[in-house]
């Protein structure tokens, strides 16, 4: 936790609900983010992250719930709350046939920046994301990482107090990803509140002060990483990479002594155990007895992945 006394809440939402036909995409989500805080919304694909963000940014009208940004209510029309907000959409929301500078100037104009401000801010944000030397090049010629960086730059032009990023590192090389995460860290240090959605556990761990775990539209847990791990009980995980009928084995393993729970996901079985030194040998034995061909064994101390597994009974990865 990075509590340094009471800080202003930049965003607060409560009881957000959204359904598409029979399907409830978001089901009672609520959280608050303070100035200088990075809040991670961690969940698998289809969990409801984008829907939550769309409501938070006034793009989608919630069926139920309230949203306040910068002290003003958020609505789908033009409103005061939107002035505080910078959105980095999940897709590259840029025109590929325009240059980086032309794109940013366009979005700056939409934000109502005047001519002089526009010129300095475009230069500043390009510098910030390390694209100053590519300002005059069209987006279509950029690498995935450069596009992502420019996508972020476009949300910073008007100095928002809340930056909302929807899976901003998808399809990005590790180097660009590190640069993006570092950049977000810098912004947070300057006092910006950040809402960061991801299905990469490592990103949430690395970046976020607090994390909300979302699954099937529900916020199933919230807290700092140590808080979350403590809350679900600290069980190490034995991870077996194997071929064979993994699901049946997981079912058997779940009933074995020492085992808290077990789940199978593509090509491996994850077993939460009380004490790995005592659980490991019997697990491998029974796996072999079941006819599994084991290609790897790994013992992992509890992390967000195991928290997620514990809370939802399934793995975070697709």
């Amino acid at each position, binding site marked *: 936790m990075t509590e340094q006394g009471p800080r202003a809440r930049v965003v607060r939402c409560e009881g957000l609900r959204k359904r598409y036909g029979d399907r409830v995409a978001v089901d009672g989500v609520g959280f608050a983010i303070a100035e200088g805080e990075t809040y991670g919304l961690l969940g698998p694909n289809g969990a409801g992250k984008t829907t939550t963000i*769309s409501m938070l*940014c*006034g*793009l*989608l*009208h919630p069926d139920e719930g309230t949203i306040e940004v910068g002290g003003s209510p958020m609505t*789908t*029309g*033009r409103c005061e709350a*939107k*002035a505080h*907000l910078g*959105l980095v*959409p*999940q*897709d*590259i*929301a*840029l*025109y590929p*046939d*325009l240059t980086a500078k*032309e794109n940013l100037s*366009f*979005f700056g*104009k*939409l*934000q*109502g920046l005047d001519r002089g401000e526009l010129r300095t801010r475009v230069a500043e944000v390009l510098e910030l994301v390390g694209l100053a030397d590519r300002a005059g090049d069209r987006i279509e010629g950029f690498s995935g990482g450069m596009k992502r960086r420019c996508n972020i730059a*476009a*949300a910073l032009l*008007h100095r928002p107090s809340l930056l*909302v990023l929807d899976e901003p590192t998808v399809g990005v090389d590790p180097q660009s990803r590190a640069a993006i995460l570092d950049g977000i860290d810098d912004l947070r240090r300057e006092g910006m509140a950040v809402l960061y959605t991801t299905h990469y556990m490592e990103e949430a761990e690395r970046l976020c002060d607090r994390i909300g775990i979302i699954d099937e539209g529900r916020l199933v847990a919230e807290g700092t990483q140590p808080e979350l791990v403590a809350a679900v009980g600290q069980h190490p995980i034995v991870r077996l990479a194997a071929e064979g009928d993994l699901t049946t084995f997981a079912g058997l393993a779940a009933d074995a002594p020492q085992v808290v729970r077990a789940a199978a996901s593509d090509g491996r079985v994850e077993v939460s155990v009380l004490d790995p030194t005592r659980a490991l040998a019997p697990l491998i034995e029974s796996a072999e007895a079941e006819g599994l061909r084991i290609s790897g064994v790994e013992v992992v101390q509890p992390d967000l992945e195991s928290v997620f597994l514990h809370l939802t009974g399934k793995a975070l990865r697709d």
Partner: protein
Amino acid sequence: MTVVSAVCAVDLRRLSRDKVALFFLLVLPFVLIFAIGAAFPVESDTVRVGVVAGETTGVGGALIEAATSSKSLEVTTYDDVREVVRDIRLGELDAGIVIPEGLTRTVEQGGEGEVSLELDPAQRSSAMLRNMVSSVLEDQALVLTAARFAQGRTDAPPQEALRVAEQQVRELARGQVRSITVGGGTEAPVSGFAFTAAAQMILFMFINALAGGASLVEMRTTGVADRAMSGPVDAGGLIGGLTLSRFLVAVFQGSLIATVASVAFDVDWGAPAILVSVILLFALVSAGGGVLIGALARTPDQAPAFGVPLALAMAALGGCFFPLAVAPPAMQVVARVLTPHAWATDALVSGVFDGATIVDVLVNLAVLAGFAALFLSLGVVLLRRRLEHR
């Protein structure tokens, strides 16, 4: 307002970088106008003319004689002008010459004998026919005037009589031949490119607007619209900017074709008020069509994929490929119900061929305004719903 102009400016800038769009906008219309316009005289070596002979001697006889002996004319005689018009519509005739009864007597008495030409507006042969008829009339008038002098049937002094005679000859040559595009009449000879220029103008204004609907889809699917609307921009501002850019492109397209046709292909558009109002109203119609297809398409590629064939079909039905006047009456009705093209080309053609004034085409303009209102309001409502995700 800054939102509308910023969105419009970006849209136009993107268009200026789209090579395919530029080809459709700047090159293809003129290639087609030239190819189609130039094709007609080549296509019809001999012009098929129907003659309704109100008299077979005197001036009328001379006209028939001249027509029959011309190698480039194939003459058929008719009893009724309505049959001539019908056969022009059926494509069995290219033109008709209608010689009124008592023409010789009228001309002898110095009166206005009117020979009318029934013409297919797409035919370039009209100018040729007109010249032939005029020159025969000119000769005949000279003969008759000379005869009147010889018979001393004028009491004017010789000097004055000669001047009157000359003037009469000129009038006969110019004023007394009336060309009638099937359904109207005009005075001046018409450029062979006129019909195709008008038709291609209407065709391309619409086709390019529908293809341009892709940029509306892109704004939605890229997330640009979402980003904009998470800031101080509402759907109305985005829609306004996109509609404005479609409109401006269509106005540009129309004006460009009008100018090039007039300068390079010698097209006389007739009343400027008709030309200007048709361009402006049809640009609104086109902008509405572009917004509509931009709202309906789910991917950017769908806009041209559905829009271009649709625009071509509407153009074909609406008389942009062949004159609607030549089409069967039932099709003319369908064309007018389903396409704004029919009304727009009709207004332009009336201006070019019939010397119509804006008052004559007010109905066309009102219908175009109606189509514009329909397309625009439907497009805006649907696009707004799409942009607002609800």
